[in-house]
C-alpha cells in the first residue's frame, strides 16, 4: 500500500486500518460507554471552557452588524446598499445563494450518504446538519431584508387576503419561497428526529434537574424500545429519501432565479447541475472549516478522524471538478452559440472592468483546490485542508459575485451600462451573518450533542450480535 507512507502527524499511524489501508472511522479502544461519556460530557459538563464564552461573544459581537445594519436599512431603504440600476441585485442575493449553498453539504451528508450506507458520515452528520440549519437561517434573512418594502414581504406567501391578490407562481422568487421554507422545515425536523435518542441519553446522564427536565422533554420520553427503534429507523430513512431530492431541488430552484431570466450570463441551462455541485463544494469546505477546529478543541480526533477529512476532501475534489466543467461549458457555449450576447458577456466577464473578480474565482475555486486535492498527503494535512476550505468558500462567494454582478452591469443596451460597488452597509450585514452563524454554532456545540451517540455506537465492534456466552465474557470485560 503506497498510502502507508510515513505520516507527519504522529497520531496518525495507529489510526490506519491494517486491512484496508484506510484510516479508521473511529479510533480503536472505544466502547459504548466511552463514546457516550465523551460526547455527552461536552454538553453536560459543569465547567464550560473559557474559550467557548470567548467564541460566543465574538460571534455575538459580529452578529450585531446584522442588527445595526438592518435597523438602518429599515429606516432608510435598500439605497444604503450598493445596489443600483442596472445592478439591482448585489450582496444580499450573493450572500443568500452562498449561504444556502453552504447549507447543502449538511443535508447531503445526513441524507445522501445515509442512503449510500456511508457509515463514516455518522460522526460528522450532526454538526453538518446544524451547519445546514444555521446557514439557512443566515440565508433566509437576505431575501426578506433585500426587498424594498420588507414589511410587506409576507405578500410572497399565499394567504387569503382582502385584496384578492395572490403570489404570481411563474416567478422563480415565488418558487424560492416554497423551496427555502421547505428546506428549512425539513432540515430542522430531520435534525430534531435524529437527536431524540441522544436527548434520551442526555436526560439519563444529566445530573442537574434543570438539564434532566430540559432534555427529558426534548426526548419526548424516548426509552429505546425496539419497536420505536424500527419505526424510528424507517422514518429517518424516509426523511433521508425525501431530503435527497429536496437538497437537489433547492439549489436548482435558486439557480432558476438566474436561469429563468433573459439575461446573458444568467440564461443558461447548465446552471441547475453546477449550482448544486457548487453548493456541495462550498458546503464541504464549510464542514471542514468547522470540523477541523472543533475536533482539535474538543479532542475529537478519534471520532472525527483523518478518514473523514480525507473523504470530505475527495467529495470536494469531485464536486469541484463538476463546477470546473460548468465554467468550461459557459466559455464553450459563449463561442459555440455564436450569439453576440453570450460572446460579449463572456468577454466582458473575463476582460471587462470587473475581470478581476472572474480571475479570483478561477484561482480560488479551480486552480488551487483542483490541483492540490489529488495528493493524499495534502488531503490528510489538517492545516492545509483548513486553509483550503477557507479559500474555496471565498471562491464560491466570488462565483456568485461574478454571476450576479458581472452579468448585470453590462447587459443588452449599452446606454444602461453601469457598475456595482458595495457600501459599508453591505459588508457590515454580510460579515454580521457570519457572526450570527458562529454565535448559533457555539450555542449548538455547548447545548446539543454535536455527534450522534446512537449512531456512533452502531459503528463499534461490540454491536456484533453473537450467540453463546463465549464472547459474552470478552465483551463484559471490555465494558467493565
Amino acid at each position, binding site marked *: 500500500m503506497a498510502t502507508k507512507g510515513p505520516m507527519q502527524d504522529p497520531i496518525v499511524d495507529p489510526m490506519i486500518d491494517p486491512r484496508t489501508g484506510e484510516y479508521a472511522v473511529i479510533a480503536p479502544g472505544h466502547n459504548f460507554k466511552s463514546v457516550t461519556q465523551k460526547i455527552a460530557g461536552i454538553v453536560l459538563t459543569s465547567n464550560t471552557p473559557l474559550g467557548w464564552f470567548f467564541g460566543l461573544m465574538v460571534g455575538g459581537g459580529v452578529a450585531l452588524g446584522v442588527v445595526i445594519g438592518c435597523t438602518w436599512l429599515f429606516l432608510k431603504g435598500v439605497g444604503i446598499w450598493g445596489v443600483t440600476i442596472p445592478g439591482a441585485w448585489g450582496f444580499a442575493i450573493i450572500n443568500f445563494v452562498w449561504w444556502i449553498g453552504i447549507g447543502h453539504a449538511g443535508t447531503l451528508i445526513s441524507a445522501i450518504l445515509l442512503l449510500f450506507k456511508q457509515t463514516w458520515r455518522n460522526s460528522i452528520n450532526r454538526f453538518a446538519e446544524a451547519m445546514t440549519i444555521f446557514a439557512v437561517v443566515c440565508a433566509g434573512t437576505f431575501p426578506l431584508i433585500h426587498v424594498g418594502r420588507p414589511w410587506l414581504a409576507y405578500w410572497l406567501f399565499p394567504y387569503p*387576503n*382582502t*385584496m384578492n391578490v395572490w403570489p404570481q407562481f411563474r416567478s422563480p422568487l415565488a418558487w424560492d419561497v416554497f423551496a427555502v421554507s421547505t428546506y428549512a422545515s425539513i432540515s430542522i425536523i430531520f435534525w430534531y428526529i435524529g437527536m431524540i435518542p441522544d436527548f434520551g441519553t442526555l436526560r439519563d446522564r444529566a445530573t442537574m434537574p434543570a438539564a434532566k*427536565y430540559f432534555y*427529558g422533554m426534548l426526548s419526548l*420520553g424516548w426509552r429505546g424500545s425496539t419497536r420505536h427503534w424500527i419505526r424510528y429507523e424507517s422514518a429517518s430513512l424516509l426523511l433521508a429519501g425525501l431530503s435527497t431530492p429536496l437538497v437537489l431541488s433547492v439549489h436548482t430552484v435558486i439557480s432558476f432565479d438566474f436561469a429563468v431570466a433573459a439575461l446573458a450570463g444568467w440564461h443558461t441551462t447548465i446552471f441547475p447541475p453546477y449550482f448544486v455541485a457548487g453548493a456541495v463544494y462550498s458546503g464541504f469546505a464549510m464542514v471542514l472549516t468547522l470540523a477541523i477546529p472543533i475536533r482539535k478543541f474538543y479532542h475529537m480526533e478519534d471520532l472525527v478522524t483523518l478518514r473523514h477529512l480525507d473523504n470530505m476532501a475527495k467529495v470536494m475534489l469531485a464536486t469541484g471538478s463538476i463546477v470546473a466543467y460548468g465554467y468550461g461549458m459557459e466559455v464553450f457555449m459563449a463561442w459555440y452559440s455564436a450569439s453576440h450576447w453570450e460572446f460579449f458577456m463572456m468577454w466582458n466577464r473575463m476582460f471587462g472592468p470587473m475581470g478581476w473578480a472572474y480571475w479570483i474565482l478561477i484561482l480560488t475555486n479551480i486552480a488551487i483546490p483542483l490541483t492540490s486535492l489529488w495528493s493524499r498527503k495534502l488531503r490528510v494535512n489538517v492545516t492545509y485542508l483548513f486553509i483550503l476550505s477557507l479559500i474555496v468558500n471565498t471562491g464560491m462567494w466570488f462565483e456568485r459575485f461574478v454571476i450576479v454582478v458581472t452579468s448585470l452591469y453590462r447587459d443588452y443596451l449599452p446606454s444602461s451600462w453601469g457598475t456595482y460597488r458595495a457600501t459599508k452597509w453591505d459588508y457590515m450585514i454580510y460579515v454580521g451573518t457570519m457572526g450570527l452563524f458562529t454565535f448559533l454554532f457555539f450555542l449548538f456545540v455547548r447545548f446539543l450533542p454535536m455527534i450522534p451517540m446512537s449512531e456512533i455506537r452502531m459503528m463499534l465492534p461490540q454491536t456484533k450480535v453473537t450467540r453463546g456466552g463465549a464472547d459474552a465474557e470478552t465483551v463484559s470485560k471490555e465494558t467493565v
Partner: protein
Amino acid sequence: MAQVFDRSSNALARFSLVLTGVIVIALGVTLDQLQRSPWVTRQGQRPDQPIPFSHKHHVEGLGLQCQYCHTQVEKAAYAGIPPTKTCINCHAQIWTNAELLEPVRQSWATGASIQWIRVHDLPDYVYFNHEIHVNKGIGCASCHGRVDEMPLMYQQNTLQMEWCLNCHRNPAVNLRPTSEIYNMAWAGPSNDKPVWCTTTGTGAAGTGPTAQNVSCTTTSPSGKSPEVAMLQMNAEANGPTSSDVPPLGITMPASYQKFTNQMDLGKYLTTQYHIRNPEQLSSCETCHR
C-alpha cells in the same frame, strides 16, 4: 434513578401539543377576520362631524336630490362636498339661529371652511371615479347604502379591494337604469315589481351619452300601442326572461321588454350601456396608476 416526570406529564405533554395546534389555527382565523373587521375598514363608524348633519332628514324628510349638494357627481371623479353657500341658501331663512348650525354661520361669516371628516376614504393610490359609475348605471345606494336612512353618515361597505372586485367582475348584479341612479329605495325588478325597458337612440351601437340610450319604466307601458301589447304577450309567453331577444340591431318601433329579475336586467343593461367586460374592469390600471 427514578422517574424524571410523574404520571400526569404524559397527558400534559400531549395536551400541550394539541393546544399549540389549536392556538396556531385560532391565530390565523383571527387575523383573517381582523383584516375585514370594522376596526380596519371603519365600516359603520360615525366620526364626530362639526355638524351632526342628517342625510335622513334632508333626503327622506325634505326630499332633496343627491345632486342638489353633490353637484358634480355626474361630471367628475369626485361627487363634491357642498360649499357653505349651499347650506346657507336655506339656512339663511330657516333655523337661522339653531345652536347646531353655528359652524355654518361661522364659516359663512369668517370664510373658513367647515371641516368635515371624510367618511368614505379610499387609499390615495386608488383612483375611483364617480362620473363613470353614475353614468353607467351604478346607483348611489349600491356603494353608499340607504343614505336616506342614515341620521349620521357612516360607511356602509368595506370599500376593500375584494368588495370592489365583486362588482367589477360581475357588474350585472348591480346595474340599474340610469333614471333610477338616485333612487335610494331601488330594489331591482321582481315578479311583482317588473321593469320595462326599451332602446332609444340608434339601436345597439349607441350614440350620445349613455343615459339617453335606454329608457326604462316601472309602470306598465301596455295599451300604448298594439305591437307593444303583443310583444308583451309573447314576452310573458316565453317566460319572464324576454331579454334573450337579441337587442342588437333591432330597428322596430319602441318595443318594451319586461324584466322580472335583476340578472336579466343587468345583462340587458350591460349590453345597452356597453359596460366593459370583466377582464377590463378588473384590470389593475382601471383603479391604480
